[in-house]
């Protein structure tokens, strides 16, 4: 436990600037999506039993106001992880791009926001 705390502290206190933050967010979003995926699979299994269980899952886990707010966090996590993952893949296969690393991280963040904002508005539209 102490080792865990120490290594997380080392992770966030190391002054690695863009690359370090990009990595921490990549790990946090990846693990967050895994947790969501666990819930997603179990809930689909329950919903597939029949119309009754489906209606319950749909109303409570997917369309209640708290669920819609959490869905926006999910959208951010997936979009960030997807775009940042593409950045990692592109730089891994074209290492020469490494010297534009900072610019590429910024372009990536702009892309994430550009897709996230309309997606969040569409998602939250129903609850206001």
């Amino acid at each position, binding site marked *: 436990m102490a080792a865990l705390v120490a290594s997380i502290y080392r992770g966030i206190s190391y002054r690695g600037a863009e690359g370090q933050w990009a990595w921490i967010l990549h790990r946090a979003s990846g*693990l967050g999506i895994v947790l969501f995926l666990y819930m997603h699979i179990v809930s*689909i299994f329950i919903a*597939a039993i*029949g119309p009754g269980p*489906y209606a319950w899952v749909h109303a409570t886990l997917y369309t209640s106001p708290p669920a819609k707010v959490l869905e926006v966090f999910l959208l951010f996590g997936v979009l960030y992880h997807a775009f940042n993952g593409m950045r990692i893949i592109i730089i891994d296969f074209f290492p020469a791009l490494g010297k534009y690393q900072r610019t590429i991280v910024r372009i990536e963040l702009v892309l994430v926001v550009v897709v996230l904002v309309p997606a969040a508005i569409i998602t939250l539209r129903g609850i206001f």
Partner: protein
Amino acid sequence: MATSSSRPYQGKTRYGAPNHEGRIWLFMRLTGLVMFITVVFHLLYMHMAVGVENITFDNIDARWSGPAGVFWRLFDASLLFIGMAHGMNGVRFSINDYVHNKILNFLLTAAVYGLGLFLILLGSLAIVLGAGGLGNLFQRLTG
């Protein structure tokens, strides 16, 4: 590999052929590339175009039926299998980074993979049997 003292990228043997971790490194990137298309499409289609509110039991039943239903079931199965494989391996990276006790590391990894296989089984059952299929099977089994 010129010298053995500095090898920043450990994914290859010194002869240039990928070792086991090197293949996993490649696997994470290939599954990532595939999911960049499939997962983003899933979000744009199910969450934006259709809308989560409109994904009802009848909607799923219709989408999974007929010839196009075969495509949708295969598509959903690809999300399930590729997502879980990539995700389970990603969890293993974190366990290896933070848990250095060999026994605890092994137990945690085994638990994560066991849970993963179990969930893949649940998801596959839902996709293969279809909307309401589990309930129908249940009824037939219990008479």
